[in-house]
């Protein structure tokens, strides 16, 4: 042991006298292999994550594919103003925010409740079966989930409408009614992810000290009281962390599923920022305008997650950073 630790000391002493440059040489010598391992990853992040951020200067230019980024004309805040003055601006903001809010309000407690119910099960085999089944939809693609939703809700022979008709009601054309879209979307999200999202809570539940339950039983606590005073406090850090993450993501609704489920008849509620950006930017080719809207929302989203984190740090001493 002594021998091992003395060797670097000698080497260190030998390197004190020479020029400062040797510090960099040593840094290179000690790290070159790790840096080499990291290099592909770094290149990926530079090219596919940071270069696009740099490319955001097109939001201040009149970008055009043939002229390229450098030769396009500077236009200042033209596209931001254009978006703020767009009559659809408030509608898009409202749709994005409400869809995210409903998803948070209904989608956030659902897996907590499911996890608590699973936790009550004594039969391990049945518990594992329910878990396995409920995780499944998380691995089904958005294309399939959207297809299923649209087909089951179809007014002509769709599964749900068949049930409605057999109960003696008129079939409802769900996907053509703007007022139904948010419910359909949020329910499909819950169906898809409720099981998977229980994992974090189930992990937290196994960490709750069983002695606390015993102590509560000795004190004569009922099942509900144990749930309230032992279980919930035990998993509250997991709940808070997930809540911050979800609040931060309120405006980042997945593009894919909304895009796949919407149609022009229900744009009134189903059109959100990201689908609008896709239409304006990718379909109509107005790259600068689309990117401006995206950046605008990105910054608002960043403010959202930052504030959620700050508030949680003050209130519960739990935070992401």
């Amino acid at each position, binding site marked *: 042991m002594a021998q091992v630790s003395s060797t670097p000391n000698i080497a260190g002493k030998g390197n004190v006298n020479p020029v400062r440059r040797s510090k960099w040489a040593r840094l290179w010598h000690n790290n070159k292999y790790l840096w080499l391992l990291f290099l592909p990853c770094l290149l990926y992040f530079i090219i596919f994550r940071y270069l696009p951020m740099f490319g955001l200067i097109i939001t201040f230019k009149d970008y055009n594919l043939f002229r390229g980024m450098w030769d396009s004309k500077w236009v200042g805040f033209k596209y931001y103003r254009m978006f703020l003055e767009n009559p659809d601006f408030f509608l898009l903001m409202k749709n994005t925010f409400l869809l995210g809010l409903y998803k948070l309000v209904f989608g956030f407690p659902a897996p907590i409740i499911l996890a608590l119910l699973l936790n009550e099960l004594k039969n391990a085999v049945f518990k594992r079966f329910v878990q396995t089944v409920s995780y499944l939809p998380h691995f089904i693609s958005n294309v399939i989930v959207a297809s299923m939703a649209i087909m089951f809700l179809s007014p002509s*022979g769709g599964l749900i409408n068949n049930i409605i008709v057999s109960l003696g009601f008129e079939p409802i054309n769900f996907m053509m009614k703007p007022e139904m879209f948010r419910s359909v979307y949020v329910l499909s999200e819950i169906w898809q992810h409720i099981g998977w999202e229980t994992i974090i809570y189930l992990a937290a539940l196994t960490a709750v000290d069983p002695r606390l339950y015993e102590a509560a039983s000795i004190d004569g606590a009922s099942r509900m009281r144990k749930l309230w005073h032992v279980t919930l406090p035990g998993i509250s850090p997991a709940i808070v962390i997930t809540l911050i993450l979800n609040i931060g993501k309120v405006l980042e609704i997945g593009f894919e599923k909304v895009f796949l489920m919407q149609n022009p008849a229900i744009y009134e509620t189903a059109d959100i920022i990201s689908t609008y950006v896709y239409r304006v930017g990718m379909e109509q080719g107005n790259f600068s305008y689309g990117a401006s809207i995206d950046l605008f929302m990105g910054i608002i989203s960043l403010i959202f997650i930052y504030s959620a984190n700050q508030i949680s740090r003050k209130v519960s001493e739990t935070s992401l950073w």
Partner: protein
Amino acid sequence: MFKKLSLFQIFSTIVLLIVVVITLYPFVHMLAVSLSGDVYVMRNQVSIFPKGLNFKMYEIVLGDPKIWTAYKNTLVYTVLGTLIAMVVTSMGAYALSRPNMAFRTPLTMIIVFTMFFSGGMIPTFLVVRSLGLVDTLWGMVLPGAVSTWNLILMRTFFSGIPRELEESGRMDGLNDIGIFLRIIVPLSKASFATIALFYAVGLWNNFIFPLLYLRSQDMFPLQVLLRNLVLAGSVSSGDVTRIGGDNQIVEESLKFATIMVSTLPILIVYPFIQKYFVKGAMIGAVKG
């Protein structure tokens, strides 16, 4: 063996059974409809079991060369994409997990920042386009080569490996790359499997990359074909429209058959690989 069940347990068992039914019924129903005769489908008589069992729809779906092309494309994108992603992610994650790597903290911060902010759809498209990756195989696998979340997850895996193993490798004269390849990789097979499965599922299900970066039909993966067949309603080939008297109903079973054909691999493999996913999610959960 009779155990007294509390009211609460009975209640939760019933609720959980309902959850199971709601989750599984759509798949069972689609399978049943796709295997049933037209008449029964038209009369809405099919629910759990197929009536008038026949494989006509599957013959049509599997007889369509487009499905096979799309299947092949999806397989290629998934396999190649997962391989590339695993190489880049595991090497990067290992480097970031070493406390002695210089500039580890700023590099980690640079990476974590991308979880909260990105250039967005259009600037990313312009980068992909200017690299000449549009409508190529590389456009499908490179822009998603590293998922920040998976990278952080793998870094957590690697941080858990005892340092002594690394020291022993160093004694044997291995450099960091040697240690990674000969000691760390063989020790982390389960973690590799977990992350590889996350990537593979993501690539298999990916819709937005082909939507943004592919133009030619014969490059389309399964998800895009599915969307075109099922959602956009354009029926694949002429034969199909000519089959039934009532197109809409036949279309329903045909669409369900198409969905089943593209989902069956996941449904079959899923129960066996499920534990790996959960393991990965658990690690993520512990670390926050």
